[in-house]
């Protein structure tokens, strides 16, 4: 048989049949609309890699998102997806996970979706501690609406016509808030480090309860200066902090550019209301009889 590129690819797939899923198994084939250079491509790659590492059946995984560039991610994957309205990914995912604890439920979105319009859900998702993994692609800007300041934008950024003098507003510190609100797993990553990101995502998915992974993911269109993030991020020195006070101090003192490590890992059990069917509807109805 003539050796063509095509059948060599097939030969490759065939030789690795021991594991049913590779990272390509988790891609739908729908082409992302993200700008070339966007960090979100990298997040998609790391996520599919992590899912392949975990060998999760695509039909047993659900990926829920809201609105924004990064929230387009479910359609690009081959898992079950839900692309909802702006800011409401966490409640959709919460309702799904509570009623379908058998599924691995992931939530994805951006800084605007998660911390501004969806900020209240973020607080309460941390409190509630449902077994979800929340992947926030933070580029400190609203990309879908032509580049406005987001909650994580520096107060002096003057790149938007909407805030020509900068926002003058203190940036939101998502991981400090997450810790204070009760998130059970907290990490910050950089999309320019996809291997590290995949590793952290695997741990986030495996950890019970609500896991928050903030990913610095550059917007090369509206924040071209973020192309330099690859030079300004620094890998966190040591890993896991199970002591909440140490984690709090570390997060409070950090400038937001420390990446690559789990910054807090808690031991709270995940919230999963149990409800075994005890009776039947007739028992309920007897309660109305005079």
């Amino acid at each position: 048989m003539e050796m063509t590129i095509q059948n060599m690819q097939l030969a490759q797939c065939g030789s690795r049949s021991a594991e049913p899923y590779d990272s390509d198994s988790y891609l739908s084939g729908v082409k992302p609309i993200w700008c070339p250079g966007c960090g979100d491509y990298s997040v998609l790659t790391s996520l599919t890699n992590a899912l392949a590492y975990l060998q999760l059946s695509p039909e047993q995984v659900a990926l829920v998102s809201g609105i924004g560039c990064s929230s387009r991610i479910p359609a690009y994957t081959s898992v079950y997806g839900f692309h909802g309205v702006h800011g409401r990914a966490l409640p959709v995912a919460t309702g799904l996970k509570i009623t379908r604890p058998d599924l691995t439920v992931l939530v994805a979105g951006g800084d605007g979706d998660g911390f501004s319009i969806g900020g209240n859900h973020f607080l309460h998702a941390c409190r509630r501690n449902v077994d979800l993994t929340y992947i926030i692609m933070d580029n400190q800007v609203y990309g879908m609406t032509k580049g406005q300041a987001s909650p994580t934008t520096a107060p002096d950024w003057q790149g938007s016509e909407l805030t020509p003098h900068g926002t003058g507003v203190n940036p939101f510190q998502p991981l400090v808030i997450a810790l204070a609100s009760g998130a059970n797993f907290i990490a910050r990553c950089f999309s320019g480090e996809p291997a590290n990101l995949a590793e952290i995502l695997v741990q986030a998915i495996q950890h019970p309860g609500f896991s928050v992974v903030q990913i610095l993911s550059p917007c090369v269109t509206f924040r071209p200066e973020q192309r330099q993030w690859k030079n300004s991020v620094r890998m966190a020195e040591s890993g896991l902090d199970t002591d909440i006070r140490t984690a709090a101090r570390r997060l409070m003192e950090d400038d937001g550019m420390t990446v690559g490590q789990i910054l807090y890992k808690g031991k709270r059990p995940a919230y999963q209301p149990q409800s075994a069917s005890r009776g039947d509807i007739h028992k309920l109805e007897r309660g109305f009889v005079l």
Partner: protein
Amino acid sequence: MEVNSLSIIVAGSGGAGAISTGTLLLNAAGLGGWYAYLTRSVGAQIRGGEAVAQLRISRERLASHDDHFHVLLALDWKNLGKFASEMPLAANGLIIGDPDQGEAPSEFLASGARLAWLPMKQLAQTIPGGRPNMVAMGVLAGLLGLPHPLLDTVLEKELAHKGATALAASRAAVKLGLEAIASLPPIARLAAPQMSTEPRWTITGNQATGLGAIRGGVRFVAAYPITPATEVLEWMAPALEEVGGVLVQVEDELAAINQIIGASYGGTPSLTATAGPGLALMTESIGLAVASETPIVVVDVMRGGPSTGIPAKSEQADLNIALYGLHGDAPHLVLAANSVQDCIFTTQWAVHLAETLQAPAIVLSDQALGQTRAVIDRPPETIFSTKRLTAEPPATGAKYRRYTVTETGVSPMAIPGTPGCQYTADGLEHSETAVPSSLAVDHQRQLDKRERKLGCYDYGDAWADVEGDGTLALITWGSCTGAAREAARIWREEGRQIKLVSLRLLAPTQPDKFASLLDGVQHALVIEQTHSRQFLRYLQAHYPLPSQVECLNRPGPLPIRSSEILGKLAKWK
């Protein structure tokens, strides 16, 4: 004189116990074989404000309150006079006051009702632990002619948890009240009940809504408290546990609607209940349920609006937002319960329709239905074969098409976990394969599909309650149906014909069915509890109406009464 029904009011403030007295009397009447109807009305205070229990007891099934009350018993007066318009008294009615509580307000005396005094407080003080409201219970039970043993039974059932001493004190106080009626002027005698072979139920509209939801198969509820819908959620919390479901209290209405969308996407029939302000917050995501074709049920127990409005009192003014509040062209179901008991059927039917048609359903109830407690016959069990059309794993290589265009408009929905059917449910417009699309052709196809699946479905006869016949029609919906039924009954008793039409399915509209049921009708009176005639404008927009149409409308909180309806009809006699 013997009458089929008697209506009484127990009023008081600041822990006087008016509401509990009313509830005990309702239970006693129900046990005795009468039908009963109890609404409560409260002032603006959480504790200590005006509390009014309005109770109607009848040998016949009840649709609403009577126009007038035969007895007003005031444990005290305080600010009660302010609310006199909510408590119309019959001209031959009886006002019972306690001399220790001062003068009766002139607003009540203006009705012409007789005034009598009974020292309830002093009588109660003669018994250690005795309370005036228990004396009042005895007085009212005596006036209504409720047999004494029934009172003992309900006291035992409701008060046993307070201990033997408290129970004995209550019994003694009730007995004093019963004896005291000898000093009061007589009122009409309530006709003896028709005994039923089956025990009756006592249920509120809000509980009935919860029961309908559970009968319909709802197993997940996301709850954010709001007056007057909270009791739906409170009843459902333990009830869902009983049947293997879950209720979660959430951070806000935005979370509530989106959690039920997530749960339903996962295959679990889901519901939330709210009032107008909550519905307003939810509307964006109801649109998401339309676009993503996710079945959900949203109950709106309406109250006075806009904004915080009159939160504890009834109105029907959320009709417009329920019908038209969604952005974009967003076909969805809007249903309205028209009696306390009908809250069961309508909610169950809404779950059935939502699941069958993969669409959101808004169920409109209101404070008047939701917070009314009624004694009713055991409601029939309605069996729907409610089953969502789900997708099976496709043949190898075949691509699952979530939003495939079908003749009915309903396409098989894959439940996560089904191999080979993974798709992304989307609020973005999409192609048949669920890929986001901004193409005109996809938008047109999906809009057509979503409209067709609701438009082509055969809703059967349940879409409207139609009673009677004639060239004259009452057209109404929701809680106004009660007064309309009462008016129609009286009108017919006078030997005339009238047709009553109460729309249960408000959207999608059914123009052909409406036209046929109004065939031959020449005059119609539209009845609604809104200020801006929302229901009339809805009818005018969607339905052919007779040439002569009048509208009887009023905003809340005063209910529309049957006498007003009869007054409007007078010219068509």
